[in-house]
């Protein structure tokens, strides 16, 4: 039987599959719930910018020979970049979308140049960073992803009401004594870590889509903050599993995005229909 084949295959290959599977599920949950806040705060472009910057820093660190543990080298730099992007976003002097554009393309270009001159050309490692590969996930990724997921999910549970307040209306939240700057830094750091881990699986060009898509799809249908968060996590995990187990013949990162696109279209239609008949 077809189903038994998949299940048999799953158990036979579990030792190869376990890290990508767990990292993928944790990444899907983490990225999608962070995405709800980023999308609602109009910070989705920061996610996109950070993925390009991660690529640049990654490429440079591989180029300079840190091939063993690049993640631990890359994360601090990307967290720093996230903080800088956030400050640019807060200031009124600079157009933040333009600033992010400059930042991210520069990082990408410098990374490419350093990696191709020092590392003897654009190697396979670096090439798969662009579009990602699920087989990249290893034990180190799993441990870092597990810690990140616990941090993110724990933050959402313990600070749920404050996150709601800061996302809904930052100036009111600040007036009632919430440290909004600290919140923004916390979110930027968690997003940066999630993106650095996620881009090895999803690829630089696609990682921001798993942050934005589930939140945007959920907002088509759901009208409560908590429901949007839960729905985003479910959409994200579902599309990951569909891409991993069913669309095995296609490139992984691109499959996740296409599944997300289809879910978005379905949700948008449901949203339009329920809106029309609810009134």
């Amino acid at each position, binding site marked *: 039987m077809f189903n038994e084949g998949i299940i048999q295959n799953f158990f036979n290959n579990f030792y190869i599959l376990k890290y990508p599977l767990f990292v993928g599920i944790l990444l899907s949950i983490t990225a999608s719930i962070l995405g709800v806040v980023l999308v*609602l705060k*109009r910070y989705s472009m920061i996610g996109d910018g950070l993925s390009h910057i991660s690529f640049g820093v990654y490429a440079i660190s591989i180029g300079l020979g840190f091939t063993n543990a690049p993640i631990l080298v890359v994360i601090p730099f990307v967290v720093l970049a996230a903080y800088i992007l956030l400050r640019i976003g807060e200031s009124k002097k600079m157009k933040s979308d333009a600033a992010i554009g400059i930042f991210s393309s520069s990082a990408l270009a410098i990374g490419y140049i350093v990696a191709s001159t020092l590392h003897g050309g654009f190697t396979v490692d670096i090439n798969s960073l662009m579009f990602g590969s699920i087989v990249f996930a290893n034990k180190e990724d799993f441990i870092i992803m597990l810690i990140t997921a616990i941090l993110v999910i724990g933050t959402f*549970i*313990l*600070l*749920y*009401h*404050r996150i*709601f*307040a800061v*996302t*809904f*209306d930052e*100036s*009111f*939240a*600040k*007036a*009632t*004594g*919430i440290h909004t700057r600290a919140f923004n830094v916390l979110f930027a750091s968690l997003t940066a870590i999630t993106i650095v881990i996620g881009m090895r699986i999803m690829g630089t060009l696609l990682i921001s889509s798993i942050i934005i898509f589930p939140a945007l799809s*959920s*907002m088509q249908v*759901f*009208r*409560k*903050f908590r*429901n*949007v968060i839960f729905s985003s996590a479910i959409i994200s995990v579902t599309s990951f599993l569909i891409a991993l187990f069913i669309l095995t013949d296609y490139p992984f990162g691109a499959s996740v995005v296409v599944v997300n696109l289809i879910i978005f279209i379905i949700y948008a239609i449901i949203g339009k229909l329920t809106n029309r008949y609810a009134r």
Partner: protein
Amino acid sequence: MILECNALSIGYENRTVLKDLNLKLESGDYVCLFGDNGSGKSTLVKTILGLIPKLKGEINFGKGISQRMIGYLPQHNESLSDFPASVFEVVRSGCLNRIGFRPFFSKKEKHRVEEMMDILEIKDLEYRSFSELSGGQQQRVLLARALCATDKILILDEPFTGLDGSTAQKLYDVLDKINKELNVTLIIVSHFVEDLLKHANKVIHLSQDCMFCGNPEEYKKHMKKEYLLSRHQLLEIGDEQDV
């Protein structure tokens, strides 16, 4: 005294908007804060709320009041219009300054939320989505949220912008009720001069070179003397028969 500013200078990093500001508000005051565009109304409000740091001078609060216990109704914000949130969630977020370091709300806060929704007559909207409400209803929800945050001082930044006549009248009624029955001090930033003067007992007018602070009657006299107002402008402050 409930709020006092002494020799206060306000502005942004390298630009002073107003300096040497002195004012004193009593408990139960109904204050309207007027001024031309760029005269520093919003800056003053944001400084009192602690959203931007003050440049010089001091802001003192009455006994039992701290900066974070001020209720605040921000200017109308378009970006809230597609936010997924129920009315109850929005109003409840006003109680955050009451829970200290606790992660969750208790029965006490839930009670307060219901009480405030009753006062603003939005109990029937409790489970509705904030984004599908009309402008006037959203205003009431945000006012309930602000009331959850305070028992003493409520600051409203341009609350009448974008409301039609009857909705604005309802808002005046609610504000009177909040001021008289709950004894909450109101500070209202607005440029709808005439209507507000009927309700307020204190007027603050900010402008580049002078600052007026007094009751509405004095304000009308002051405006006539200082500016030799045109008939049209007098109409605006509701004093046309004296021309």
